[in-house]
């Protein structure tokens, strides 16, 4: 795991931090990757998470955290370059391919991921998942959206309200 020349100039070896999921699994990860999370970044800058301490994340289970860290590790080098002006087109294409693949997952995982990204303030990941969900809404009829996103069946009362709305603004639903 020795990563030359990364980290914050700590003599070659990258600084590592430990994150502890809600089900008590410990993840050791480079500080640079964990710092994609704005919330973790503050703790890490304060010197937390090193040694045997670990940073507890009571809202994130291990399955979700491992997925989140997969994203962070992949995106950390580009983030370290500050938007990566020196990134090649190949690098960017590779990140894009990774992103597309990454959100090609079950909706329950999308849910856990966007919640975790929101709690940990990982903006890139939050946007990535939000965009994926937005694609399920764009250009679809309300019925298609409800089916795709698994909305519960409306109560008769709700259905009546919706019908009235659609009757009034039919032009929006053609």
């Amino acid at each position, binding site marked *: 795991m020795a990563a030359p020349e990364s980290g914050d100039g700590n003599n070659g070896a990258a600084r590592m931090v430990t994150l502890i999921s809600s089900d008590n699994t410990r993840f050791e990860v480079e500080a640079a990757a964990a710092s994609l999370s704005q919330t973790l970044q503050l703790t890490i800058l304060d010197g937390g998470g090193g040694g045997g301490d670990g940073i507890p994340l009571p809202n994130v289970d291990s*399955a979700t955290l491992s997925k989140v860290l997969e994203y962070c590790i992949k995106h950390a080098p580009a983030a370290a370059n500050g938007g990566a002006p020196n990134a090649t087109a190949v690098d960017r294409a590779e990140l894009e391919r990774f992103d597309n693949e990454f959100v090609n997952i079950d909706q*329950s995982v999308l849910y856990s991921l966007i919640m975790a990204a929101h709690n940990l303030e990982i903006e890139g990941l939050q946007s990535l998942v939000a965009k994926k*969900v937005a694609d399920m809404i*764009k250009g679809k009829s309300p019925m298609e959206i409800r089916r795709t*996103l698994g*909305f519960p069946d409306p109560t008769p009362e709700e259905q009546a309200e919706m019908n009235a709305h659609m009757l009034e603004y039919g*032009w929006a639903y053609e």
Partner: protein
Amino acid sequence: MDDGSGAGPRDWISALPDELLHVILSFVDDARDIMRTAVLSRRWRHMWVHAKNLNFCSLNLKNCTAPGGFPGFVDWVLAHRAETTMDSLVIWMTQKSRAASPEQIDAWLRYAVRHVLKSLRVQLVGEQKDHKAVVVLLPSICRTSYISLSLSTNMSILQLPALATANYEALTELYLHSPSFSEQGPVLGDFVTSCCHSLRRLSISAPKALFQLVLRSEELQQLEIYWAFDLRTLDVTAPNLRVHSMFVTAISGFPARHLVSSVASLLIRCSRHLRLLRLSIPVFTPRRDIAKCFCDNLEDKWEIPGKIALE
């Protein structure tokens, strides 16, 4: 919210906080798609009225049967929005869409500069039926930081607000495409000089009736002027203009002789920051005898030949 197994609830999207639903809606972008979410469930019924980004593009709404067509749809949505601020608003009309009336355009702009904080992009094209000039009035008070206004409507005239009451302190970037400037009211240079103190970038392309542009700006870093056929005097004092940032030029393929063909005087005071000034001026300018370029760090010694590039 989290059942610990990593699997979300079946109706997981309803379990998301409002804040996240708005992040999702901001990526949905298209105004009609956003409005349609009103019938997803009771919770969604009024979600869309707080949407942070709205994009009205007449191409996406080609066969819009809303009362009043595309402009009517824009009116309807803006009228039903909550009185909250938004990040971005795009109103993009194409040739085929029904033209908006001057009153509608004024109302959109008034609404936009009060509610949109980050980015406002408006394109108005299409001909007015009666071929009368449409005056587009820029409102007095503006909270928006980025404005791009494209007025390709034939005969649409941009009227700037009265200098004494106008407040454009929030504005940092202004793009004006094919504006026709009004003979009445303030001129663009005075408007920028006295009301847009935070403006860092000004881009003007294909202006009509822009005869002179006299600018004094502390913050201005980038200035671009394209296809300024009517421009006679360009006089800019901007100590913070950056390298490679000032272009008075044509895009490639456009016949150079149509470009700023009769600039009589050009004054640019911009200190050492400006390293390159590119001017494409026709070789056979009809008024070549009086064409002169004054630039502080060039010691007034430049006359405009066919083309100059100063390093």
